[in-house]
C-alpha cells in the first residue's frame, strides 16, 4: 500500500505503509522535512499536512486535541490534518498528501 507525498519543493515521493502505521510514521520514513517534534502525541502541530480528496473524506473526524493543536499551526486550509493522528488503513491506499509549509 502506498502514500503519494509531495514535499515543500514539489518533489514527489511514493512511500509504502502497513495497516496501523500512522501517516506521520510513513511520511518520516524518508526525509521530507517534517519535524514531528513531539513524536506523535499531538502536542506540537509540526507534522501538518494537506490531505487531498477523496481520501480526506475517508478520514475519521478530527479529535478535540487535533483540532486544538491545528489552531496553533500555520497556513491551515481545507485538507489540513496532523499526520500523527491518522491511522492508515487499506481504504487509504494511494492517498495523496502535501507537506504543509515550514516556519521559523
Amino acid at each position, binding site marked *: 500500500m502506498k502514500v503519494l507525498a509531495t514535499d515543500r519543493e514539489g518533489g514527489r515521493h511514493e512511500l509504502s505503509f502497513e495497516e496501523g502505521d500512522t501517516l506521520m510514521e510513513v511520511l518520516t520514513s524518508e526525509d521530507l522535512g517534517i519535524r514531528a*517534534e*513531539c513524536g506523535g*502525541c*499531538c502536542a*506540537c*502541530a509540526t507534522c501538518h499536512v494537506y490531505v487531498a480528496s477523496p481520501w480526506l473524506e475517508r478520514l475519521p473526524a478530527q479529535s478535540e486535541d487535533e483540532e*486544538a*493543536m491545528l489552531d496553533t499551526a500555520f497556513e491551515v486550509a481545507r485538507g489540513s490534518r496532523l499526520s500523527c493522528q491518522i491511522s492508515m488503513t487499506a481504504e487509504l491506499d494511494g492517498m495523496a498528501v502535501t507537506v504543509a509549509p515550514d516556519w*521559523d
Partner: protein
Amino acid sequence: MSFVRNAWYVAGWSARFGRALTPITIMNEDIVIYRTEAGRAVALTDECPHKRLPLSMGRLKGDAVECGYHGMTFGCDGRCVRIPGQSNLPSSAWVRSYPLHEAQGILWIWMGEAEKADPALVFDMAEFEDPRWAVHYGDALQLESNYLPVADNLCDPAHVSFVHPTTLGNAASEDVPIDCRREGRSVITSRWIRNAPPVGFFRAFGNLQGNVDRWHYYYLHAPNVAVIDFGSAATEEALGEAERDRGVRLFALHFLTPVSETRTIDHWMHLRNIGLDDADLGERMNEQFRLAFDEDKQILEAIQEREARPPARRGVKLAVDRGPNYLRRIIAEMIAEEAPQEETKPSVQAMS
C-alpha cells in the same frame, strides 16, 4: 490580561490576618485585609477614593477603616460611613469589597464578579477532615514569574528527574512516559516508576530501603490549584493504582496567586498519611519541600527573565508538553468566557 478573574484565590494563610491592616496585591489590585472585632475577615480596595492614599496606612475604628489622610471612613461592605467636616456622604464615596471565604486555615478571595462567588467552588478535599491524614502548612513562596509557567510546571511530572534530583526525583524516571488527560477544567498528568531506588524524600521519611514503586499524579485545577499526589511503596507490595493509601503517600498542595504579570505567590502545604503523631515531621518534610521548590523558583525566574525579550526562534514542542498544552487551552477558554464582562466596571458588593 491573562488572568482568570472568576475564581477563588488564596489571599494568605488565615493566621496572617488579624486586627492589623494588611496590604496584599493580587492581579495588580491593591487590597487591604483585616478582621472585624468578631474575627470575620474583610477585604477592601487598598486605596482611598479621595487622594489615593492606601487605606492600609490608616487605622481601624471598630470594624471600619479610617483613611490616614482626611479620615474618610469605610465599613466592611466598602461603603463610606463618615467624611469628617461634611454631613453628606456622596454615592461615589465607596471602595470595592471582595468576597472572602475561610476554611482549613486558608483565606480565599474572589477576584471576579461578586454575584458569582460561590463558596462551593472553594478547593476542598476529604483528607483535610480525615483522621488518617496530617495537615501541615508551608510557605508563601514568592516567584518573579508569570503564573502560567508556574502552572505549567505543576502539570509536568517530567521535570522532577532533572530539577529535583536529590529530593523528589531521580534518574530512574527520566524516560518513563507520562499519561495525560483533561477532565473538565482539570489537567491530570501521572506516571508510575516501578522497581527503582527510592528518591531522597522517601529515603529520608518513608523508611524505605530497597527498590520501590513510586507514583506521581499531578492534578491541576485551572486556573490556580495544584494537588500533587506522590508516594512510594516497597516493590514487593505490588501496589495497584487504587491502593496508594497503603504506601507512604503525600499530597503537596500549591495555590497560585498572581500578583502581577511577572510575580506569583505559591502558597504550598502538604497532607501525609505517615507520622501523624510526630510533631516535628511536618517541619522536617517542609525543609525538603523548601529545597525542591526553591529549585523550581530558580528555573521559573530565569525563564521569566528570558521571556522579557522576544524569542529568536520558535520554541520546540515536546511530548511532555501535553499537560501544559491542555492547561493553556483551559485557561484561554476561561478568559474568553469572561471577556464580555471585562468591559463593564467591577460590581461593588452590597452597593444597591
